[in-house]
């Protein structure tokens, strides 16, 4: 269809459509990050995405696939490590986050033939969104939304009280794994827009903003989506008009909305 083609031929529209797709899933997943206190965990996964990119070049697989696999492996490793309790979880996360980032950067520097736009990967790039990326984003978003909808009660219950959920027969461990997979997927597709270093911000700022107004978990996820849309729309427009980097512009917009809501709105009664 010519209209759709015209829209998709424009890099700004591609970035905007892609960004809105990311916000669609970053909202609900961000709520889980906030509820489960996984902000640092999300950061660690996101940092490992760069390692995933380096590995993708090494074994020549598509970038998204490499990133997803690396994130999943790291997520599982984290869960296993944190059970042994020899190190505090935040220490462990700190070690893995920065080591994964550093190993990724070092590995990339060993591959002089590979031309990667490092700034784009770290902070997002308005120009980088291809039609193929859009397919990944909306495919990934569809998978995540279907999973969230079908597993909602179990996910919510195991977030509220893990032991109670377990006694009631909810497969807590399996759900945790599914949640990790969803995080890995969203990181792989959000990387292009906001960059590796700022993905966590797109997850938690809209969710935290939504908390102020929400009166139920479902309400909070919907509001988080809306605030995500505002952040992406505003941020990308800012980037286009003022030629600012895409990721930071999105985060600055999200933060402005956060300040506005917390400054003006009375907290919801729940």
């Amino acid at each position, binding site marked *: 269809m010519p209209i759709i083609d015209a829209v998709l031929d424009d890099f700004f529209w591609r970035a905007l459509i892609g960004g809105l797709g990311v916000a669609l899933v970053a909202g609900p997943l961000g709520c889980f990050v906030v509820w489960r206190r996984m902000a640092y965990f999300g950061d660690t996964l996101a940092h490992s995405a760069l390692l995933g990119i380096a590995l993708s070049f090494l074994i020549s697989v598509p970038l998204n696939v490499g990133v997803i696999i690396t994130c999943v492996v790291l997520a599982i490793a984290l869960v296993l490590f944190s059970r042994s309790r020899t190190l505090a979880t935040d220490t462990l996360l700190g070690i893995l986050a920065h080591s994964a980032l550093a190993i990724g950067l070092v590995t990339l520097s060993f591959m002089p033939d590979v031309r990667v736009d490092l700034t784009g990967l770290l902070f997002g790039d308005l120009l980088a969104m291809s039609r193929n990326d859009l397919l990944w984003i909306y495919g990934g978003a569809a998978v995540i939304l279907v999973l969230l909808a079908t597993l909602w*009660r179990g996910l919510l*219950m195991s977030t509220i009280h893990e*032991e109670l959920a*377990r*006694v009631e027969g909810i497969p807590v461990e399996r759900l945790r794994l599914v949640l990790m997979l969803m995080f890995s997927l969203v990181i792989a597709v959000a990387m292009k827009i906001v960059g590796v270093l700022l993905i966590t911000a797109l997850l938690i700022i809209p969710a935290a903003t939504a908390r102020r107004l929400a009166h*139920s*978990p479902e309400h909070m996820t919907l509001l988080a989506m809306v605030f995500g849309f505002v952040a992406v729309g505003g941020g990308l427009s800012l980037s286009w008009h003022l030629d600012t980097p895409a990721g930071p512009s999105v985060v600055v917009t999200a933060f402005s909305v956060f300040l506005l809501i917390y400054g003006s709105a009375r907290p919801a009664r*729940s």
Partner: protein
Amino acid sequence: MTEPLVTLDQLTVAFDGRPIVDRVSLTLHRGDIITVIGPNGAGKTTLIKAILGIQKVTSGSVTLADRLTVGYVPQHLNLETTLPLSVQRFMSLSGRSLQECQAALDKTGVGHLMGASIHHLSGGERQRLLLARALARKPDFLVLDEPAQGVDINGQAALYDLIRQLRDDLHCGVIMISHDLHLVMAATDKVICLNQHVCCSGYPADISHDPAFIETFGQPVADSLAVYHHHHNHHHDLHGDVVDAGRHPDHKECGHAHH
């Protein structure tokens, strides 16, 4: 005799090789209420977590009857304030209908809180909410970890009465941990004194029938305190380990000899 709901056979849970629950055996039938008492660190919570299947068992076995609906009232309900949650939503997450949820809340005396935020409840209200949550599931087997925590004195008596009444209504089996001996004794079939191993177990009535005991202390105190006045045939050191256990290698039932 019907098939037991729960059977423990030599159940042992050890952390780093040190047994926290040591060779505990018991059976629970429908209509039974078993109260687990014992000092801090005696492994009470670990024992019930093992029964519930949320704590790995080191050796021995826990056998639950087929298709058992379990109601669990955990010790704490620590909630993230970042998660907006009303009492109604929390109850409905049990998967039961609104009417069943409302009925359960009414039964535990917090029916008026249906619309309240869960974050604004007092400690006692939270305990009643947790009990209502367990009730809404119509359990065959109810497990309570210090259910009267944070409940005021009058409320405590009412709560234990309620638990007994629920046992009659639902014809379920109950295992609970409690420190409120005075109140629990009347509502309990069987008391287990746990200190890693089962120090003693028995029926409060048996103990309180001892005439010398009643004469000395009076019936009410005998009812509640008898169980603490048993003679150990072994001693515990500061870690709760059994000293001089060699004399009585099998000390699961140490009897209730009294002065």
